[in-house]
């Protein structure tokens, strides 16, 4: 099986513009940044959450806290992932009780990651509200989960993979559609 790149879905400039828009939408819908906090899901949700927080500083002049969540222990398919999925630390230094939390991830697909992330969050306390922000929604949901803030919706087939490549992790900045071919 080979992996071939089919097309580029977003350039660096488009990613940046999209994140700016998402930051505005979150602030608008939350009625300000008071009691708002972002939780980036490891790995690529983390830099995205940090960038959205930076954009919010430009809008409201307020520092929105950013936490990171590793969902490995909460997955329902752990034994299928790898012989051993390596655990990373979660780092949420603020109390989540009564907070207005926005989970941030790169791609929304089956919804299982988000289900796991919510289980992880609720072990930390009882947030007032949890919403979801993703850069790409590619469909194929297996859970009753939807994102409130979506960068772009893209129709995909099951064999296709969307790769979000970010400077902080991948040393390049773009979103590509790749396909598995036999």
């Amino acid at each position, binding site marked *: 099986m080979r992996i071939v790149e089919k097309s580029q879905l977003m350039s660096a400039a488009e990613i940046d513009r999209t994140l700016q828009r998402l930051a505005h939408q979150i602030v608008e819908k939350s009625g300000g940044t008071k009691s708002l906090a972002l939780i980036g899901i490891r790995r690529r949700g983390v830099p995205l959450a940090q960038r959205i927080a930076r954009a919010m500083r430009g809008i409201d002049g307020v520092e929105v806290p950013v936490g990171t969540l590793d969902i490995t222990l909460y997955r329902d398919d752990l034994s299928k992932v*790898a*012989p051993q999925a*390596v655990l990373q630390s979660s780092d949420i230094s603020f109390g989540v009780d009564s907070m207005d939390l926005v989970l941030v991830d790169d791609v929304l697909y089956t919804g299982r990651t988000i289900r796991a992330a919510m*289980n992880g969050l609720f072990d930390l306390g009882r947030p007032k509200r949890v919403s979801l922000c993703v850069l790409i929604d590619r469909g194929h949901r297996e859970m009753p989960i939807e994102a409130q803030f979506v960068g772009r919706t893209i129709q995909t087939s099951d064999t296709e993979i969307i790769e979000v490549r970010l400077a902080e992790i991948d040393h390049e900045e773009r979103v590509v559609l790749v396909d598995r071919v036999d």
Partner: protein
Amino acid sequence: MTYRFRDLLALEPLSADELTFILDQAKPFQEIQRHPLKKLATLRGKTVVLAFFENSTRTRLSFATAASRLGADTMNLQAEASSLKKGETLLDTANNLNAMRPDCFVMRHASSGAADFVARHLEIPVVNAGDGTHEHPSQGLLDALTIRDRLGNLNNLNVTILGDISHSRVARSNIHLLGKFGCRFTLCGPAMWVPRELEKIGPAGTPIRCVYRVEEALEDADVIIVLRVQTERLHEPSLSQNDYILLYQLNTERMKLAKPGALILHPGPINRGIEITPEVADGPQSAVLEQVTNGVATRMAILYLLMVGATEGAHPALEAKPEVTPKESAHASD
């Protein structure tokens, strides 16, 4: 990196990178100890056998807590209430427990090599929770985690171990782990407990010296590991309890000889006023309760690494065999 063994029988065969990997995997579990809700569903539906052929309270409860916080169920075997008293062999007991289809076998036994022996006969992961005078790997790991948290890293430390080294599986696991990070060891206690052969037990090239004056042993120490004195092993005329206190007890005055900020560990249970004074055991340099908290996190990491996805691609036990072969007939704790 992955953990390449099916079992955790000893720290001796593990490399510095592998040990670091296990310690790093304990970090997320340390965080979970601070959560308001500590229970995960990661090992839901799995069963862990806790077979303690030798008595233990702390280690058994620590493994039970670790299993429970990962969502697993436990099956308990305790020496005094078991069929061991009725003459069943160790292998028969292990096979019978295994026939109830558990997913992991945690065991402690008074004979060195017992866990290794059981691991050769079972197909599920075996965790050695202490075998005779051989090793106590989870204790070695939790001690290292505690040292790393307090002192920043494990490299090139001066480690002093006080007490009955010759009978201590904790000391052996400490030396096999910390020796791989370039630590230097000073072993100290009455001559009957600190034979010179111990200078050769570490990883190749590990500096280990045996000394018999506590003042000499504490000089320049970064870490002091105080072992429990088994009072039944102290007897006249060789050494009375009072002589031990006079010659070897870790007290405030003697602590001044170690480096400022030197860390004190004790695997417990403590004999207050014998091997250590209450002021030192409860003082700011002591990490004994952190060791207990870290013990749960370390054991969660061990169960996670051995039980998640462990069925495919795992190697059979490759662990070094201890020199002592266990008696096949099980015996009650001694």
